[in-house]
């Protein structure tokens, strides 16, 4: 165990370098047999050396192969022959480059492994662990010097100094948080509304076709979006709806209220058989569109919240706590499906201010 020797005399003043430690366990020991540097079995070592060398040569060849594959195998439409498949080209290049790289690395690894296990002597040494805890003398000296310095700085003796320093730095510490305010707008009421308005037509997502009620067959389901908003992902992320058409009599649910607000009604369907629900799951917002025709269940693939489409999208399994909001539907003057108003309640995941 090495100890820091204290010189005799008065305690050191801060700033004086400490004397070098005296006892070091890396000191040379006198008159001993020479250090072992070779493995015990020469013939075995020679064989091992040849094997390792062969592996390193393999690694070299594979490395050259890597460079050759890079140069020789082109990718990208502009570089491959016309008519060739870019995905095929990427596959070939990835396979060649990857295989070459893997061989280089694994050959280097295997070679290094055999090297260290068969070409070195199996020397084991012992290192001493030092007491991690400092000697009481050192601890005492530390404490004394620390207290000295604190006393010299006057910070312990002058509370006015201390307190005004804290006061001065407090706003500075808050400043970074304050600067983060403009990261984004305040939520305000934006989560309560979507872009749907009375008379705004619904069009199919992708093809952007407006639809008439007669276009639907019993058992159909289709995703629709508000007309004109197909390039607005922020709007789509709340406004997407799924329309489901039932056989007569299948769709049947009572009026539902949230407080005094009507939130689901058969009056908002078309012919009591075509209904529109929000496609945004009320759990954490995944698109919920897994509609099973036979069970009339709408299943969200993210966490398996399940909604009964014949019953106002009532939750029947899973973590969602509220049914999918219903979009009131109407038929506009040209006979196309449109919203009769915005959703009567906020769509998507719950939030604190939702009510």
């Amino acid at each position, binding site marked *: 165990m090495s100890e820091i020797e204290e010189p005799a005399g008065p305690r050191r003043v801060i700033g004086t370098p400490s004397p070098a430690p005296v006892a070091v366990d890396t000191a040379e020991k006198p008159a*001993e*047999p*020479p*250090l*072992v540097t070779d*493995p*015990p*079995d020469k013939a075995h070592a020679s064989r091992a050396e040849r094997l390792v060398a062969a592996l390193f040569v393999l690694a070299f060849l594979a490395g050259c192969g890597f460079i050759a594959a890079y140069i020789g195998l082109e990718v990208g439409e502009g570089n491959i022959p016309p008519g060739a*498949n870019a*995905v*095929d080209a*990427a*596959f070939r290049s*990835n*396979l060649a480059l*990857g295989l070459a790289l893997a061989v280089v690395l694994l050959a280097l*690894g295997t070679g290094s*492994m055999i090297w260290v*296990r068969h070409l070195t*002597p*199996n*020397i*084991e*040494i012992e290192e001493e662990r030092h007491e991690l805890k400092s000697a009481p003398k050192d601890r005492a000296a530390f404490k004394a010097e620390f207290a000295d310095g604190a006393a010299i700085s006057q910070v312990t003796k002058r509370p006015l100094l201390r307190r005004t320093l804290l006061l001065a730095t407090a706003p500075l510490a808050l400043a970074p948080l304050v600067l983060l305010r403009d990261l984004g707008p305040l939520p305000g009421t934006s989560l309560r509304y979507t872009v749907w308005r009375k008379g705004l037509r619904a069009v*199919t*997502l*992708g*093809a952007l*076709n407006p*639809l*008439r009620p*007669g*276009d*639907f*067959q*019993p*058992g*159909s*389901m*289709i*995703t629709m979006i508000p007309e004109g908003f197909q390039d607005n992902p922020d709007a789509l992320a709340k406004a997407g709806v799924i329309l*489901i058409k039932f056989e007569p009599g299948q769709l049947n649910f009572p009026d539902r209220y949230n407080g005094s607000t009507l939130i689901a009604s058969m009056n908002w369907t078309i012919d009591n058989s075509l209904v529109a629900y929000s496609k945004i799951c009320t759990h954490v917002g995944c*698109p919920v*569109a*897994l*509609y*099973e*025709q*036979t*069970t009339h*269940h709408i*299943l969200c*693939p993210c966490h398996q919240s*399940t909604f009964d489409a014949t019953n106002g999208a009532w939750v029947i*399994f899973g973590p969602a706590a509220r049914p999918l909001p219903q979009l009131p539907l109407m038929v506009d003057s040209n006979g196309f499906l449109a919203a009769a108003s915005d959703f009567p309640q906020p769509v998507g995941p719950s939030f604190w201010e939702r009510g």
Partner: protein
Amino acid sequence: MSSIIARRRHPAAGYAAVAGGLVAVGVLYSMLSGGGASADAPAQATTQVAQGKSLFVQSCSSCHGLDAQGTSQAPSLIGAGAAAVYFQMSTGRMPAKELGAENERKPTDFTEQQIYAIADYIASLGGGPPIPSDEQVSTEGANTALGEELFSTNCAQCHGFAGAGGALTYGKNAPSLNASTPKQIYTAMLTGPEAMPVFGDGTVTPQEKRDIIAFIEDTKAEPNPGGLSLARTGTVTEGLLAWLGGLGFLILIAMWLTARRRDHAISERGEAEHASAEGLVVEKTEAEHTEHSS
């Protein structure tokens, strides 16, 4: 025969016997099981109705009723249409194997011509969507980009982003599309079999259906440039491979790297570190024996 008996004690005799047994069973099975449907070109329409009726009575009426009016076991097929018959029968789902959660794809015993005959008969009972022609399902000039949008919004939530299939409720699942032909995909969209919703021509136009089919066919045909696809299921299989393949391999290497070496450990000056195990045991065992035996 005697040469076989003479070799019965050969080291490979056991393996040969098992291999021979497997081959024999395989040959027997393939001889006895029925062949699959052959792709005959469909014959002319109306003359098939009678043939279709007799086939129907033979194979389908026990569940669907003699006039396809339905029974407690199976729904009425009046108005179901030719396309539905084509889908159900060409994928082998019908005749149903058992009344379970849902019917799965299996090899069909009917030829294409027979299926068209039965389809014609059912269509004659009450109309319904017809079987599309080859031109109607052709993907020439299809807009694969639109197909991608439509597939990802209306199909992927059940069938998976690459058509590998997915779970539904109560033991059902949306099947993989890997074995589906364009005509089967078209008729499935048109008729909404079992749990699948209907994507009629009113909501998804015939051209859009072709776009979707083009996307599916492209995806199926596409190679996997990054290596094995791991079933195109996503991160679950990737994670399994990282733990079992990646960590498993590396643990084996680590065990190799740190395994005890055959040459015993020595100090730097060449002295043996520990007394040889064998030497100690030989000495001690004799003494211990007298103590331990009673």
